[in-house]
């Protein structure tokens, strides 16, 4: 295996370990003259914000050939010298930023980028201290730092290495960690953080009774093993992947992407290593013999919007999709805003426009057109069975293997059976001077009245293919001599070239008329009278006798009600008079299909005649002439070929063989039918011929910058793709997950940190470039990232490290000192406290009320939504069909996500138009209206109240339980008094207007009746009152917040 990742060569000068800087929370450090200046912390941000626009990486806009983003640029020999170490006054840089001469002043006065005096001061100090340079921190090789040593007193506080980094930083900022959180708070925090659901009161009680470290760890392990863990982790990944159930744009058609969602949930639950998780999603299709799941995984980069608008230029759309994939991949794995380089060299980060299109080339070779060309989806798509279908599919495979095995008798038995059979036939021949049974006809010609293609095989079978008309009549001409024929047999037979194996062209058929005519070139056609007909199987009310009347109303059909049509059938038509064809006469068989059931025409069939007096459905076939002539001789005279010919014929006519074949065809047909009913999902699949990639002028699909063809490639500043690596997405995926890639592990652990602690160690989760924020704890970030890599990218282990730390277990109480010194709690002197995402708030009320339906995976559901929303935005074209029953109470993860209009009660959620890796958290009156008034919340409050009333008879207990079950702690006396006050107010209100009770209680699909027995008016009033209280508790800041 190639190495994939080719590290950069660092000049010794360039590398000053990222470890030299201390904190990103600049407010914590006064930059006075005694402070040592750190290039990355103090200087690069100033240069980046104020200078790079004209003196940065973008060669096109670079002024005066001066570059301030590289060490070479800063150190370049210029006249006058730009920087003289330790001598700011002599440095041109300082002169330019301090002069008042607007002609030479930098940044130019009209640029809106003027420097503050503090910034000028920093630059001055930097030069005074020697103008040290270090490369951008996130691009430095990842080296696992040593865990800081702590003094004994604080070392006791620490529970794992993570705490060492945190407390060391706290101490340097004159802060102390907080006391541990109360057990109930901690349990609620932990359960919400790991599963997105609250603990049950029983779980809380159990932990409170035994709040030991061992018990805590046990709970952590249990939570990580719950299926709800995978669902919870999936949410943020879906958001990053811009997952939606519709395409967006005009029309906003529905797509089937839930298979990929289920894949993500399972991958998290199975604790798939993050590198594998990455590889399968970026390039699962390119793995050696990829599994169905690995192909489904590649749906990650098909989650972008699709434009099916009329008048749209398909190639323009396709190019947009490639941009989207390139940029999403850049943001999610590399934490880089590669999109900037779509139109020009990146202004701030070392990424050229050319490199952007080399990355783009990885995603430019998908076998796609830019059109929405596969139902609501766009090719390439993959057929995907549901879980049930997949089970049956696998069992069919096994049954098929068995059926093939049972087709032959053991050799000895077979030989014995054959000998007996030969003897019987020879005896029959001797007695009757002929073989009895049906003689298969080899027709002279077969024609279709509607222009379908007919062909006749050597065994006399007539196959109809080609054009598939709604109605069709077949004419079959027989010129074999016939004597004393009593009956004619029609055998509709299965055939692999027919849909679902026939025997009709679309499985079933309706034969409306069966006619026989004797023709002669010189005579009038002579119709033959058919006396009767029988068949071995008829579909109810489609009896074969209907074929004897010319009416098109009905006929013979064979559907069995269970999709088992692919079975060989036969019908016998008895002639009124025995038939003998005179010299020159031919027999014409007409098969009419004129029923109202379109395309119900025969696909493959055989005809046979017999001279037997009373042929039945059991009557055997006479051996065909080739076999018959051998059988006519004594067996001893056969040569080897003849012996084998007879053996072969016999074998194919044993019951075992016939049954096995029948079984096989049925199973294959079931497989085909199932495959036809499979859902599909969009996946990645490359084209054979590589699509050309050129640099596009300002990203215009039809404006290549020049004719140069680009190869795939990775940005030089991140390390090149190894020379011997294949040039495809799989190589990119392996390059991304190489342990030598400086970004992937850092970016990934930071995102998980954000999930657990509310914001990242690098707050700009999406941007690890020079415009992003510096890490608050760079050493901790590197330690976590290196540790993550060392332990095989184990996500559960990473999360466990975080939640086992003392840092995590702190109380969220905020001290005045902490607020003064670290108002945004970047140093974690206490546990972060933040409002839960709206999807979790919804899940939480469903769980607390007992409404939640836990079912993992599957298609999206449509819970409550105010009427008319979809109709309004789409002019009535798209209507919301609300689900009922369990579907109303599934986790928010499964709520149908319309890209143009997300679920209205999920506020502050990313819009799923583009990749998003950072959570928005705002606080507006509209959110209050949602959780106060939405049906979801009112119904949950009422069902919760119902449950509490069932559990407890006494008012006091009920009040307490409402509070404790939701907030998992005991109420204070003051709080209880407030609850009681609310109870009194609401109770009086409903007492006065009892009709209001029912109005309230009828909200939501879950009926409120039959809850209590007996259920009187007073109960109604109580229920309405407690519903109000539950509604209030569901809106307390504490309930809405992860504390």
């Amino acid at each position: 295996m190639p190495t994939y990742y080719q590290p950069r060569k660092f000049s010794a000068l360039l590398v000053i370990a990222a470890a030299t800087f201390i904190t990103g929370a600049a407010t914590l450090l006064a930059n006075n003259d005694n402070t040592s200046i750190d290039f990355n912390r103090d200087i690069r941000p100033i240069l980046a914000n104020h200078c790079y626009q004209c003196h940065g990486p973008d060669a096109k806009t670079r002024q005066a050939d001066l570059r301030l983003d590289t060490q070479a640029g800063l150190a370049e020999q210029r006249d006058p010298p730009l920087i003289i170490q330790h001598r700011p006054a002599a440095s041109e840089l300082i002169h330019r930023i301090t002069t008042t001469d607007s002609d030479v002043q930098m940044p130019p006065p009209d640029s809106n980028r003027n420097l503050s005096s503090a910034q000028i001061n920093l630059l001055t100090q930097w030069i005074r201290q020697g103008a040290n340079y270090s490369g951008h921190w996130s691009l430095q090789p990842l080296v696992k730092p040593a865990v800081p040593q702590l003094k004994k007193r604080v070392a006791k506080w620490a529970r794992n290495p993570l705490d060492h980094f945190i407390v060391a930083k706290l101490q340097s900022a004159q802060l102390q960690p907080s006391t541990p959180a109360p057990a109930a708070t901690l349990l609620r925090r932990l359960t919400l953080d790991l599963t997105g659901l609250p603990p049950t009161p029983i779980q809380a009680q159990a932990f409170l009774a035994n709040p030991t470290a061992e018990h805590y760890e046990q709970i952590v392990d249990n939570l990580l093993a719950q299926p709800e863990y995978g669902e919870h982790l999936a949410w943020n990944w879906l958001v990053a992947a811009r997952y939606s159930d519709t395409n967006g744009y005009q029309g906003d058609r529905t797509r089937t992407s839930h298979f990929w969602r289920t894949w993500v949930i399972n991958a998290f639950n199975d604790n798939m290593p993050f590198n594998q998780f990455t590889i399968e999603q970026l390039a699962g299709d390119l793995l050696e013999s990829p599994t169905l799941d690995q192909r489904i995984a590649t749906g990650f980069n098909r989650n972008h919007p699709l434009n099916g608008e009329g008048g749209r230029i398909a190639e323009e759309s396709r190019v947009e999709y490639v941009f989207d994939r390139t940029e999403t991949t850049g943001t999610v794995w590399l934490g880089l805003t590669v999109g900037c380089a779509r139109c020009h060299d990146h202004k701030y980060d070392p990424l050229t426009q050319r490199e952007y299109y080399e990355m783009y080339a990885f995603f430019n070779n998908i076998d796609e057109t830019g059109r929405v060309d596969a139902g609501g989806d766009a090719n390439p798509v993959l057929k995907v069975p549901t879980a049930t279908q997949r089970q049956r599919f696998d069992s069919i495979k096994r049954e098929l293997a068995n059926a093939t095995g049972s087709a032959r008798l053991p050799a000895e038995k077979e030989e014995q059976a054959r000998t007996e059979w030969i003897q019987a036939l020879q005896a029959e021949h001797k007695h009757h001077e002929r073989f009895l049974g049906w003689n298969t006809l080899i027709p002279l010609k077969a024609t279709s009245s509607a222009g379908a293609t007919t062909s006749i095989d050597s065994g006399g079978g007539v196959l109809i293919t080609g054009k598939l008309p709604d109605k069709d009549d077949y004419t079959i001409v027989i010129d074999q001599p016939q004597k004393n024929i009593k009956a004619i047999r029609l055998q509709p037979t299965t055939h692999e070239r027919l849909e679902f194996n026939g025997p009709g062209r679309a499985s079933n058929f309706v034969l409306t008329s069966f006619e026989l005519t004797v023709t002669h070139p010189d005579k009038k056609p002579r119709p033959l009278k058919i006396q009767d007909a029988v068949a071995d199987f008829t579909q109810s009310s489609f009896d074969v006798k209907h074929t004897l009347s010319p009416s098109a109303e009905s006929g013979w059909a064979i559907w069995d009600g269970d999709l088992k049509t692919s079975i060989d059938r036969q019908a016998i038509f008895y002639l009124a008079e025995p038939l003998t064809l005179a010299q020159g006469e031919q027999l014409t068989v007409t098969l009419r299909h004129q029923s109202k059931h379109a395309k119900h025409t025969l696909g493959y069939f055989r005809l046979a005649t017999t001279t037997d007096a009373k042929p039945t459905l059991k009557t055997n076939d006479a051996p065909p002439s080739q076999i018959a002539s051998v059988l006519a001789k004594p067996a001893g005279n056969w040569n080897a070929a003849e012996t084998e010919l007879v053996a072969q014929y016999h074998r194919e006519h044993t019951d075992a063989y016939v049954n096995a074949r029948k079984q096989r065809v049925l199973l294959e047909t079931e497989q085909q039918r199932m495959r036809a009913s499979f859902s599909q999902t969009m996946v990645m699949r490359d084209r054979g011929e590589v699509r050309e990639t050129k640099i596009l002028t300002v990203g215009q699909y039809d404006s290549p910058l020049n004719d140069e063809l680009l190869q795939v490639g990775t940005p030089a500043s991140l390390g090149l793709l190894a020379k011997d690596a294949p040039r495809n997405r799989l190589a990119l995926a392996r390059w991304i997950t190489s342990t030598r890639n400086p970004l992937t592990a850092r970016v990934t652990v930071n995102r998980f940190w954000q999930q657990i602690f509310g914001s990242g160690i690098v707050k700009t989760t999406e941007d690890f470039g020079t415009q992003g924020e510096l890490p608050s704890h760079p050493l901790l970030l590197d330690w976590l990232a290196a540790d993550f890599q060392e332990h095989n990218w184990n996500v559960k282990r990473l999360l466990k490290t975080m939640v086992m730390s003392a840092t995590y277990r702190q109380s969220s109480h905020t001290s005045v000192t902490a607020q003064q010194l670290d108002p945004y709690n970047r140093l974690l002197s206490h546990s972060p406290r933040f409002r839960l995402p709206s999807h979790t708030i919804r899940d939480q009320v469903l769980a607390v009320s007992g409404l939640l339906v836990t079912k993992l995976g599957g298609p999206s559901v449509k819970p409550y939504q105010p009427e008319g929303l979809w109709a309004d935005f789409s002019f009535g074209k798209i209507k919301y069909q609300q689900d009922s029953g369990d579907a109303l109470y599934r986790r928010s993860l499964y709520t149908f996500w319309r890209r143009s209009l997300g679920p209205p009660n999920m506020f502050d959620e990313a819009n799923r138009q583009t990749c998003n890796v950072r959570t928005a958290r705002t606080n507006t009156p509209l959110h209050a209206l949602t959780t106060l008034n939405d049906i979801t919340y009112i119904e949950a409050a009422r069902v919760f109240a119902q449950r509490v009333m069932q559990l407890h008879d006494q008012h006091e207990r009920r009040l307490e339980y409402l509070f404790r079950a939701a907030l998992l702690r005991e109420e204070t006396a003051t709080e209880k008094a407030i609850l009681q006050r609310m109870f009194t107010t609401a109770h009086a209100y409903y007492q006065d207007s009892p009709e209001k009770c029912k109005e309230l209680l009828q909200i939501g699909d879950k009926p409120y009746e039959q809850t209590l027995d007996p259920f009187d008016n007073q109960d109604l009033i109580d229920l309405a009152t407690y519903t109000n209280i539950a509604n209030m508790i569901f809106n307390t800041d504490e309930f809405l917040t992860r504390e």
Partner: protein
Amino acid sequence: MTPDPITQYSQQLTRRRFFGNTGTGLGIAALSSLMGTSESIPAATDLGAPHFPAKAKRVIYMFQNGAPSHVDLFDHKPGMAKFHDTQLPESIQQGKRLSTMTQGKEQKVLSTPWKFQPYGKCGTQMSELVPHMGSIADDICLVRSMHTEAVNHAPAITYFLTGSEMPGRPSFGSWLSYGLGSANDELPTFCAMTSVDRELSCGQIFYDWYWGSGFLPSHHQGVKFRGNGDPVLYLSNPNGIDRKLRKSLLDDLAALNNLRQQEIGDPEILTRITQYEMAYRMQASIPDLTDINTEPQHILDLYGPDVMRRGSFAQNCLLARRLAEKGVRFIQLMHAGWDQHNNLPTQLSVQTKDTDQPAAGLVRDLKQRGLLEDTLVIWGGEFGRTPFCQGDMHNKKQHGRDHHPYCFSLWMAGGGIRGGMTYGESDDFCYNTAKDPVHVHDLQATILNQLGLDHERLTYKFQGREFRLTDVHGKVVKPILS
């Protein structure tokens, strides 16, 4: 109860976070009642906005989704008549890219079937289809040289409203909310309303990113007023809970939250209490606002016969005035229709009947109340329509005009814009701009300018880049300023 020192301290802290430390001017007053907060938001006043004294305090944008035909309404080219039914000269077409619906097909000039006439003292030529707009000709500035790059509805509308063809950027109103904050304490800063043509002729969807906040914090997004059901989602109390009971619940809820705040010391709790109070006020103010029964008949008459129909463009125009009176900063009306590819002769007059009187009525109503002075009104679509015929030239029931981005018209009134003038010119076929072209970004820069904002300085840093509504373009169109 007396707040303890921690509470007092954190109240101060909240306020400081809220306002930033340096801002002056309108921003501060406005921000004191901003609709929402978040710790991750840089205070808008850090921008130093407004950057200079504003001529307009608010904007009413009557967006005509679907693209009205400038050829038939505003851009009078009598000379086109003699080219009717002949191939559009190559010198005009210049091989420009069109939508795939007409690209590469024959392009025969379709001169307008309607008469034009001069209106007002200024004598601006406009079509007989828009007599009411004609009657306010002296108050409006008609720009005849708009141009854009997009040729399809959604990208073109997104371009006008967010500065980018791809969804994901903040919309105009959310930029203003971010830059200037709110000017009232009972209504959202940015409201959007939609309506559709009576005889629905097209399928452009109202995407919620048209009033979305993109990467700006989500409380800057426009609040959509709906044409049916609750005017704002989840505004009504549930059945069985009246306003009085709700008030006691909210009071008790505030009491519980206050206790928690004292216990925990998190200033965010105080913000939450404020937001719940605001929600309660909105429950009263929004139904008041949408109750138009208090309007006298002569005012209703200004807006035309459709005004009493909920969700109509006419009623939305009236509501826009009421919102403007209450200090809402950006009012975005979106009226869909106008997309007359194959029914121009029959449909355009229906469309103008729906929109002409209400739009003009709104300007008159604002003017008579003295509100027009500081309210910037804009009327226009996302592009224009081709001067050549799409469909069967000889069958009036089966022809119309295709999308046309290279030149179209739009008008503005009030808010420091000169009335009674036209600006810019098209060529002899309304095809290309011939004089003083105005690009979408120029219009955006000009509107921001009237609100006291420098479009180059109203920025927000996202994914490593300072973003602007005008991207890296835009010039204020100075000649149209009064």
